């Protein structure tokens, strides 16, 4: 659990872990206005989009750094800027066909590229989107729910056939006052399609008319079934969540951890951290501070967080004094 002040790079850590397997891979999100499938880097770009800004320079420190690197254990992903391109390299061996053939001399063998100031990705016809240098990671955020629904819309047959929609509907029924039996996509007024919660009495409620916490939980469960990630990354997990829903989400995290999935969440809520700390064995809390572009973090156990609270010290306000 990553805890820290606003702008302490918590979301950046999640985004970096999301990019790490391969920024060019397709992810289970679709851009709503264009109905175009998104790649990992494009999804992060969507989150960061400001007015008409374009391109991937935001991946580099202050937009002008020559290089950036994301590392986890022995896996490393490098971003090297040359002119208007950011080339992607890794320390992991890849099939020869994955590498780009570019005349420029780089200190990496690039397997793909991103433009600094245009929304273009790729570089050649190499199968760069198939490359994986780490197990799959899935990013969940309430901001991305609508992007996920469009992905589900385009892949509904596959999703339905997994049985996850019935499972999630039953799960949600235990948390809200209505009894759902399934999630469906059906015509709505004027013949336009919509996603529904299908109730036991045969009536339907559009997902968009359900509470925002329910929406994000349903979305996370379905996307998880699709992506089967090794890393589940959830930004601002407490957003829109009633404690009842949060406890269920924490129970789900616990089940995932038992199955070997690494769950990384960010939160501004100590209540959320306590609930998750209580339900997920060996949960750890990292306080994070960003100083002059350098990230500092300290790891605490939920018990230590509780003891500090008893001493009047809230780790969210004490980020710069925690060692």
């Amino acid at each position, binding site marked *: 659990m990553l805890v820290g002040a606003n702008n302490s790079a918590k979301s950046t850590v999640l985004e970096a872990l999301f990019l790490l397997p391969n920024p060019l891979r397709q992810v289970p999100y679709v851009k709503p206005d264009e109905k175009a499938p998104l790649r990992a880097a494009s999804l992060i770009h969507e989150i960061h989009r400001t007015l008409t800004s374009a391109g991937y320079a935001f991946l580099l420190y202050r937009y002008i750094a020559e290089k950036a690197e994301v590392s986890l254990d022995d896996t490393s992903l490098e971003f090297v800027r040359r002119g208007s391109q950011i080339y992607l390299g890794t320390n992991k061996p890849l099939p020869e066909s994955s590498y780009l053939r570019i005349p420029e001399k780089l200190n990496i063998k690039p397997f793909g590229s991103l433009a600094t100031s245009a929304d273009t990705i790729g570089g050649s016809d190499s199968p760069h989107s198939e490359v994986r240098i780490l197990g799959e990671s899935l990013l969940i955020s309430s901001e991305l729910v609508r992007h996920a629904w469009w992905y589900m819309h385009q892949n509904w047959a596959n999703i339905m056939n997994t049985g996850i929609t019935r499972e999630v509907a039953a799960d949600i029924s235990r948390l809200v006052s209505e009894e759902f039996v399934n999630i469906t996509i059906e015509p709505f007024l004027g013949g336009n399609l919509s996603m529904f919660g299908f109730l036991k009495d045969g009536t339907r409620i559009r997902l968009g008319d359900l509470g925002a916490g329910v929406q994000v939980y349903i979305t996370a469960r379905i996307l998880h079934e699709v992506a089967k990630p090794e890393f589940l990354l959830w930004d601002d997990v407490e957003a829109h969540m009633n404690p009842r829903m949060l406890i269920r989400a924490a129970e789900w995290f616990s089940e995932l951890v038992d199955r070997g999935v690494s769950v990384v969440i960010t939160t501004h809520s100590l209540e959320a951290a306590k609930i998750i700390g209580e339900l997920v064995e060996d949960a750890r809390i990292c306080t994070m501070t960003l100083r002059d572009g350098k990230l500092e973090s300290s790891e605490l156990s939920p018990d230590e967080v509780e003891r*500090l609270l008893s001493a009047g010290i*809230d780790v969210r*306000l004490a980020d*710069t004094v925690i060692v």
Partner: protein
Amino acid sequence: MKLKPLGTKLKAGMSKKLRRTYSARFRSEVICDTGDADSLVMLGDGDVDDIVIPVICHHLNGTGIAAVAKPEHPRIGALNELQTVVKRVGADKIALIMDQEGDELAQIGEQVGARLRRMNVRFQQDEVFAKVVRYRCTMGSRRFELILIVSGREDVRVRAHKIEDHLIRFIQNPPEFSDSKELWRRVDEDIRKEVLRKLLEEEACREAFPQHFTGLNLLKSH
């Protein structure tokens, strides 16, 4: 010296009191929202500490920042989590402010000493001023100073000494009282505000809170 509150309730309460009693500008001069702190002040559980201690720290000047916390348990109970605090908070000096209540000073000293020994803290103590004791502590490989500041004035004739002892001297013609906290609560709000504003005069504040000035000043010196 600025203060950086480490608790949400303390931060909100301190901000509100400082803004209402003095000004928003004074609040921002005294309270620090960001920045590093190398010392920690553990406040007593009363309402008065929240406003008096920031004013004293303001008079102490300096550019340093002290973190400030209000533990759940008052007085010696504030030391319950000292091990975790020392391990996890990067403060070399920790000031504990507590009301004397009806205890003898020696009795409080013994209780603090016993508590430290129970936590396997080795220490040397010296009384640097009346009602200010400095414990030079070693816990494992960690060294720190615990500065105990006991609130209460001997010239106030009460059975239990409290931080309000220091304030009621500014109340002109006070009614009969046997407890300074009770008197402080009983007087008109305008009088309380007037007294608190009087603390902005450094000399008056120093005279009223001598042990607090001495003890908190120890946080500054290296």
